[in-house]
């Protein structure tokens, strides 16, 4: 599996210790395998996102870590302690659910204080801590309100404050933002990330929103059908998706069927492209992938370095750029989509039906063994 997932701590340059280690974890619901052989390490202070389509097992994995739905087999270790079989009460985490699960009959203050009680803390201490937390999440004067009297975003913050009140070593967030409207969501993304940095608490967030994962996470765990497809930083996952699934799930990607033409060369239709790959014998069917924004429109007509001629069969204005559908007899059945900046469209005077030259930069082309099933 991918191992190039080291995360350098920004200030010291050394890798922080592993805080959470998951080994060979399996979760079955009857005959259905919801999680299969999950291996994962989360480093101390890290913000990790579980990203994947609905039903891929993100929540299941999170709940296994929390001990709410204990795994069928496999091991979980937190801060050096084997917690695999422990009930939630004997683990060390705070959790925020999509529904927030705020206690409706308790005020905001009492909701946050809930976990602080029965801990040999004095009343005054508890109150002080709650005030501190309310301040921290920007709800300083809202302590006496009931959850129903708050907006969705405010409720979300209360849930967050309640989860971190006891200073847990691990913070678990299950789609914390998905119930909010887009604007609030964008704002809260920032706040949660800032708060997490400030507290330095190791955090795992479940989301099916790639933008959320890309902007917030230190590392992203991409999941599909109960297995991990790739683990990596947002840039790695975006730039170098390990599988066709990841490439397709995150961002937009052109998939074109091709064959290996020789060492470091693939052929699409009549066109031969050079690119980086190893260990495939000639004529092996492959899938060639490139992101639309990586396709470059060449102004000069060079016929070298992955440049070839195409026709613009459609040009669609998408606000900040144009998306062009490119076709060519030499490409065979294949179609390419390219994102072209407004400036370039204007300066080159591009329009539908026009022939242009494009370059597919060698280091942006990704090759996957097997014929394309996407497109």
């Amino acid at each position, binding site marked *: 599996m991918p191992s190039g997932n080291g995360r350098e701590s920004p200030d010291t340059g050394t890798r922080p210790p592993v805080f959470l280690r998951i080994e060979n974890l399996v979760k079955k619901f009857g005959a259905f395998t919801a999680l299969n052989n999950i291996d994962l390490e989360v480093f101390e202070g890290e913000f990790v996102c579980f990203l994947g389509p609905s039903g891929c097992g993100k929540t299941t994995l999170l709940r296994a870590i929390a001990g709410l739905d204990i795994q069928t087999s496999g091991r979980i270790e937190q801060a050096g302690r084997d917690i695999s079989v422990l009930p939630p*009460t004997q683990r060390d985490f705070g959790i925020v659910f999509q529904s927030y699960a705020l206690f*409706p009959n308790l005020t905001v203050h009492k909701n946050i204080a809930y*976990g602080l009680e029965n801990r040999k803390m004095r009343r005054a201490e508890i109150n002080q801590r709650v005030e501190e937390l309310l301040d921290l999440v920007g709800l300083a004067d809202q302590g006496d309100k009931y959850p129903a009297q708050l907006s969705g975003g405010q409720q979300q913050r209360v849930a967050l404050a309640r989860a971190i009140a*006891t200073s847990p070593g691990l913070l678990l967030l299950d789609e914390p933002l998905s119930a909010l409207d887009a604007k609030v969501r964008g704002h809260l993304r920032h706040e949660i990330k800032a708060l997490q940095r400030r507290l330095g608490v190791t955090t795992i967030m479940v989301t099916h929103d790639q933008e959320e994962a890309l902007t917030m996470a230190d590392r992203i765990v991409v999941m599909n059908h109960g297995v991990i497809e790739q683990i990596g930083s947002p840039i790695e996952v975006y730039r170098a998706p*390990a599988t066709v699934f990841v490439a397709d799930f995150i961002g937009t990607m052109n998939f074109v069927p091709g064959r290996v033409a020789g060492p470091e060369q693939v052929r699409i239709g009549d066109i031969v492209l050079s690119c980086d790959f190893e260990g495939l014998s000639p004529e092996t069917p492959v899938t060639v992938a490139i992101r639309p924004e990586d396709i470059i429109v060449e102004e000069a007509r060079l016929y070298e370095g992955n440049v070839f001629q195409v026709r613009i069969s459609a040009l669609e204005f998408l606000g900040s750029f144009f998306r062009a559908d490119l076709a060519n007899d030499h490409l065979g059945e294949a179609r390419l989509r390219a994102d072209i900046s407004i400036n370039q469209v204007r300066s080159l005077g591009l329009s539908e039906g026009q022939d242009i030259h494009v370059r597919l930069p060698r280091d942006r082309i990704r090759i996957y063994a097997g014929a394309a*099933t996407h497109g």
Partner: protein
Amino acid sequence: MCACRATASAFTPGPPPMVSIAQVRRPAARIRPKLNRDDWLMRAFMVAIALYLIVALALPLYAMLSKSFEIYSFRLDTIEFQVDEGQGWGPPINALERGEELGIVRRDDLVTTADGRMQATEFFPDFSFLAPTRYRIRNTEPNTGGYMVRGQQFTDTEWREFSSNDFRRVTLRPSQTKGIGNYLVYFSTPALFSSIEHSLTISIISTIITVSLAFVFAYALTRSCMPFKGLFKTAALVPILVPSLLPGIALVYLFGSQSIVVKVLEALFGADSVAWVWQALDNGTYGPTEIYGPIGIVIASVFFTFPHALLIIITALSIADARLYEAAIALRAPKWRIFWTVTLPGARYGLISAAFVVFNLVITDFGAPKVIGGQYNVLAVDIYKQVIGQQNFQMGAVVSVVLLIPALVAFTVDRLVQKRQVALLSARAVPYQPRPMRRFDLLMMGYTGIVSLFILGILAVCQFAALIKFWPYDLSFSLNNYNFDVMDGGGWDSYGNSIRMALYTAVIGTSVVFFGAYLVEKGRGFAAGRTAFQFLAMMPMAIPGMVLGLSYIFFFNDPANPLNFIYGTMAILVICTVTHFYTVSHLTAVTALKQMDAEFELVSQSLKQPFTKIFARVTIPVCMPAILDISIYLFVNAMTTVSAVVFLYSPDTTLASVAVLNMDDAGDVAPAAAMGMMIFYTNALMRGLHALGTRGLMARTQAWRTR
């Protein structure tokens, strides 16, 4: 970075690559989650409540079932006599052979009851207690019925010797075996099995009438714009507050031998013409004056089942989707077609469910047929007659089993239908808003008015009867009928007992039921245990009260039962009543709990708080309206129930509802009506308090209740 380069290994088509890796790894051990104190506590509580249901329901039912297969017969083949007339002991004489020789018994006719006795001297026609003859007797098989002498029973196989003077005191005892004999007797005795047909007839007719009446009533409440809907609905729900004996009593007054109706008609038209009309209508068996019988039972049954049907049908009608109506109107469908194609299909599950609920109520009801059934036997009353009248417990058990069958069928069908209804409810529908239509609204108001008047009229008749000295001869006002202490039934004490019993039932029952429902809904793991509990909790609804009460006799009155000490106490009444009304309470609690976020418990656990804290601080406050609903439901039913407790009260724990029955039985009909009305006023008062309490609670908690 480089490892994620697009190498060939990065993607293989087909199944995920993990499969092959899994085979290489060592087989993973299955995790056994460790349980914490909370998990153990919850399991312990759940097992405790499940044990309660087993002891209070499953075991008694089992005891009843095995009782119904108990047969008593004389095992004469295992008895031997020897006679010494002075010349030494003669050869052993087999009692069966001797009996057949003498023609006093037949081999295939040795069945008797538990109390059956046979004199040993019957086998010796020339017996004289003065003769110097000596007799010997023995059992050839141990532990058969044996014989009894001066109160001592012998079941061993020793020979015992008696002088002729003592021999006349030897009686043979029947031996108990298991078999279907009781059922054979039941189904070959027309006087017994004709009750099955009677019960079914009554139940089906009552069901059709009640559901039709309730449907129109519910239609008026949900689809018209008539005024005073709240008032009419309240009036229609009144029968819930009274024992099912009461409508019977009112009918006796209205149509019985000293009929109020006849008196009024006679006053209006003269005695002769009334007598003539009555004669003309009389068909010989059930004329209009013959209110004792099926007609009376049906009217009384319709009265007391009406609110149950009404509530179900109102629910079904109010989930109608307005969009369907708009579509139908846009298609210019005529009104009657809209009714047939939209209204009725939409309410069909409600109608079916109401029908089965009513059917079940009627077939298991004891109050109405007891008071007004006359000679028309039905199953529930048969149980009472067999047990209380004839002390034939085995036959009582057989009738109970017979009664269980239709009740179980009705219950099962109702559950299946309700499941579908829930699915309908959750669909997103736009509620239908009726528009005023003068003629239709007036018509509906007329109808609901008449029905309401009839219901309130029944109560008014009872109250009227209770307050006059002696109908129809002395119509002066009097409180004599409230002098319960001089009558059968336990006097005012029974009223006090009833209130105490209802309060205990409400408090204990609500606690047990709600906590049990909480454990089922919110417990962690232990899925098999929770499913089993859920099943146990649904069972009481299928068990008729008479059957439950009789089962309790068999189970708790058994001296070998360590729980025998609660027999005849208040405790057994409370346990029986809580169990009898467990299911509806449980479902109410489950519905309320389901509306709570499933994640509250998880949050609380993640904050390392015990489950008792979330239960006390959040669950109970949020569910308080449902908790109040359960307690008032239990209170009202504990006040009115007769069927189960009629077998279980003792002289110290007589109950008001049973007093109504006993006073009516003894001919004190007016005091019975008076006591019935006391139950009504008590229940009405508690309902009022409940409404006030709920309103106050809602007002106080409005800040956080947004629903």
